[in-house]
């Protein structure tokens, strides 16, 4: 079994050749590696991990986002189907304009996951083929998973009593 820590050095070297800076963390809880990258490079780095790295991460498990007080954080959970390594790639976005490049062209699975993140968290994905709400209705206002979301919306019937 090829562990990701073994190939870490070579991966970092290759990434450096591509002019991509990243920070490599080892999560203290389990075997997963966390890679923190600049949001501008996200397409290149995901492309790299899918096609060029020594361990090819061919399954995109999920795209998720967290609303931290100072910034938004988008994380991509990747799994490789041969050695079962898992990595998490994280990028932080500004509060004012949470926009990131879509990776729906690299993984088809990202299409719906990104729509869900747009719907619930309000992250905008550039160049997404069909960026509209997926779980909530089209005329919903606000993004519920944000911390500043107002729960007692006047339009909801149980708030009109």
């Amino acid at each position, binding site marked *: *079994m090829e562990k990701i820590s073994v190939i870490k050095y070579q991966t970092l070297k290759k990434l450096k050749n591509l002019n991509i800076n990243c920070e490599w963390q080892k*999560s*203290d*809880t*389990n*075997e*997963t590696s966390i890679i923190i990258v600049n949001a501008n490079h996200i397409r290149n780095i995901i492309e790299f991990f899918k096609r060029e790295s020594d361990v090819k991460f*061919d*399954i*995109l*498990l*999920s795209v*998720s986002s*967290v*609303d931290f007080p100072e910034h938004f954080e988008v*994380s991509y*959970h990747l*799994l490789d*189907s041969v050695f*079962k390594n*898992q990595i*998490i790639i994280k990028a932080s976005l500004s509060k004012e304009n949470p926009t990131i490049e879509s990776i729906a062209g690299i*993984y*088809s*699975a990202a*299409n*719906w*996951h990104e729509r869900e993140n747009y719907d*619930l968290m309000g992250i905008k994905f550039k160049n997404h083929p069909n960026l509209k*709400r*997926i*779980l*909530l*209705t089209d005329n919903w206002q606000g993004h*519920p*998973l944000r*911390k500043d979301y107002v729960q007692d919306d006047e339009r909801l019937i149980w708030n009109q009593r």
Partner: protein
Amino acid sequence: MQTLAKQMKINVGPQHPGTHGVLRLIIELEGEVIKNLEPVIGYLHRGIEKLAESRTYYQYLTMVDRVDYLSSFFNLASFCYAVESIAKIKVPRRAEYIRVITMELNRISSHLLWLGTFLLDLGATSPLFYTFRDREKLLGLFEELAGARLLYNFYSFGGVKQDFPPNWLNKVKKLCDELPVLFNEYEAIITKNPIFLERTKGIGILTKKVALDYGITGPNLRASGVETDLRKEPGYSVYNEFSFDVCTRQNGDCYDRYLIRLDEMRQSIDIVLQAIEKLPGGTPDKLLIKRPNCGCSEENCKYCGFDTLLTEKKINLVNFKPPKGEATSLIEAPRGITSCYVVSDGTKNPYRVRWRTPSFSNVQVLPELAKGSLYSDLMAIFGSLDVVLPEVDR
């Protein structure tokens, strides 16, 4: 017949007996051939991720069952493992064994329900009665164990809520001896049935490339020839201690997805029997760990070990605060990889909980499979993917 060749847009659902929940499909037909298909989801959205933020960990634990009502134990395990790895709680070995036994039995009950309803979708009524007859026995056992038939709420952070009731394991053993015979019964009426073969063989072929691209996991991926089973490798919980095969098939059509689930049920029975054989002993009152792990990995540690006298206080249910941190758990659920991503900020409430559910991907791949096939095959394809809609919408 000029009119039949015309393009036609029709609506299936949201309430439709074949959709196992509330799913709407917008289908563009040309004659009987599906040209385009668009699933519309979200009718069962309950905001289960948002609800976590206003509740304490123990309050939220009861809601976790509802993510997928057919495999409650897996959702509970997913959330518990994530929180345990943040709080660095070690689960006693016997509790891990109890988790494995209950999870594998749950896998069988989930697959049995799938089998019955899948054949019902194809128009065969009688298999439903066979599978429900046997699923009833499993649900009876769960009821005796946890007090509920579907939403068990049986696991807790650091263990399980109680030990097996007296004589429960004997009943499980007896059932495990009975079930393979009953599976043979299904095989006798289904596997070689010419109508069933006609409806499923070569229908809805999911190639390896498409499956990986869409993030399909679980039996659907293994039916396409990819050997990915997280129980085997990397192996969470105590699965490394059992010997079982990862079942794979090569064609990736509806028929293979049927066969692979039958194989998996047999493997699950194997695992349950092995787990009962190896079950570590102990008294019921020591099943819930009373102190977070001291950090060692020894078997008989003074503090975190299971068969020693634990003198520390119990985890305070009201004031349980895991430290700052985040964790992801990956669980091989009946439908694929269920993953729970928990971010803790050191307070009583989780800061963010994210559910990654396998059915979400399974619905997403449906247009890819259904394009170009006949309308009458749509329900066979959709049924064979084993989608549970509450899990899609969360």
